[in-house]
């Protein structure tokens, strides 16, 4: 592990995260856990993708029954009721978060732009031990911006693909955008694994690179090695 722990000398405590960011962050953790676990129970109803009588889409998890430990709802109806209840607060917190980013201007320190590409390459080199020192950064480094921008896009796609499966006739235009009902199911399912991958990498990097950021996401205050403002 080349990432050096933050040096001991007292750094000033700085305000890093607004309460809306902290609230929506942790609410999303719980709600997403509920959405994914109820979703895996729903998946069991028909664990493949493709119309009846047509070839199935490529899916290494075809026919997989997930262990009861990661399924919520007990049976299909129970899981559907969980899924369709949790979708409301999930969307509400998502909109609150994006509304906050827009109103506060904080989106500027999160949005990944083409000009972030060279910085992202430098960060990648650092993580791959091809570069010793941590590149200078603002509140977030370019790879973080890429991750946090992508996860918002992912969230929007998850909701839209979900709606297109929920109402494939009334929202037929949306279902068509995803390539039809079965492809919409397919994207909805694979977005889950993108969320899971994001979460694993996200948690690892928090502990390896910047443990102080965990406390910042809880209390809002940060005494770590990185700037809290661009």
């Amino acid at each position, binding site marked *: 592990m080349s990432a050096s722990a933050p040096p001991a000398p007292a750094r000033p405590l700085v305000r890093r995260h607004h309460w809306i960011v902290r609230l929506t962050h942790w609410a999303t953790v719980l709600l997403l856990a509920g959405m994914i676990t109820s979703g895996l129970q729903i998946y069991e109803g028909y664990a493949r993708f493709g119309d009846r009588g047509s070839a199935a889409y490529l899916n290494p998890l075809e026919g997989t029954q997930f262990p009861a430990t990661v399924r919520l709802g007990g049976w299909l109806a129970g899981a559907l009721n969980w899924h369709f*209840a949790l979708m409301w607060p999930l969307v509400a917190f998502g909109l609150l978060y994006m509304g906050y980013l827009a109103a506060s201007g904080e989106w500027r320190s999160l949005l990944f732009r083409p000009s972030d590409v060279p910085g992202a390459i430098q960060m990648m080199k650092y993580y791959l031990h091809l570069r010793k020192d941590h590149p200078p950064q603002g509140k977030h480094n370019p790879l973080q911006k890429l991750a946090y921008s992508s996860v918002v896009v992912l969230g929007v796609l998850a909701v839209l693909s979900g709606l297109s499966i929920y109402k494939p006739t009334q929202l037929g235009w949306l279902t068509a955008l995803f390539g039809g*009902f*079965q492809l919409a199911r397919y994207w909805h399912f694979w977005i889950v694994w993108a969320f899971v991958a994001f979460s694993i990498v996200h948690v690892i990097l928090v502990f390896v690179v910047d443990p102080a950021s965990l406390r910042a996401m809880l209390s809002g205050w940060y005494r770590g090695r990185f700037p809290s403002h661009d």
Partner: protein
Amino acid sequence: MTDPKLDRRALLRLGLAGGTASLAAACGWDGGNALRPKLMSWSRVNDWVGEKILYSPTRLAREYPTSERATQMPAYMISDTIPTLADPKAWRLRVDGLVQQALSLSLDDLMRLPRATYTVKHHCVEGWSAIATWHGVPVSTIAALCRPFPAARYLDFHSFDADYSNGWDIASAMHSQTLLAYAWNDQPLAPNRGAPLRLYSPTKLGYKMTKWLTSITFTDKRPGGYWEDQGYPWFAGI
């Protein structure tokens, strides 16, 4: 706010909450007796949104060419064996309840009425879908004959598949694509698909389409249904 103890307490609380949630998921827990009724009540809110906001009585489900029909399509019943009639000739569809003219219709009566045909995609709540052609009489045609009173807001469809039934909102039932189907893929309806007569609609999930029909009752009270009473969404509009 700057007291680190507070942070630790917050962390502990969060851990407890997260732990409880994971434990809940870990037991395949479905909300237990306390939460299940609340989730089912909330499902009625989703029904309301589906019915009052997202549903359009004039929007038609997409139709497909017959060449895209599925080569196979599952069929299920709740009885142990496929429900059949001892005397098919004696079968009648009873139409009653809040109507000005109760009806008793034979299959021949129904087949003499104007026939509707479409090739649409079937959506099962389990997640599968299959394209098939359905032929039958629109429920709205039957309504024109029996003339329901304005108080009739729901339809209750009953079958001879044990006690299988479905309650429908009248707007969905009057949709031009809601049929009483007596044929499937150009052939008379097979016994496993609900012969002699079944409900069909491409704006609902499959479990709302009562097979092996015996009666339609127009009513002012929202009827339940076989799966609906067990927790599946009541409106089930897609």
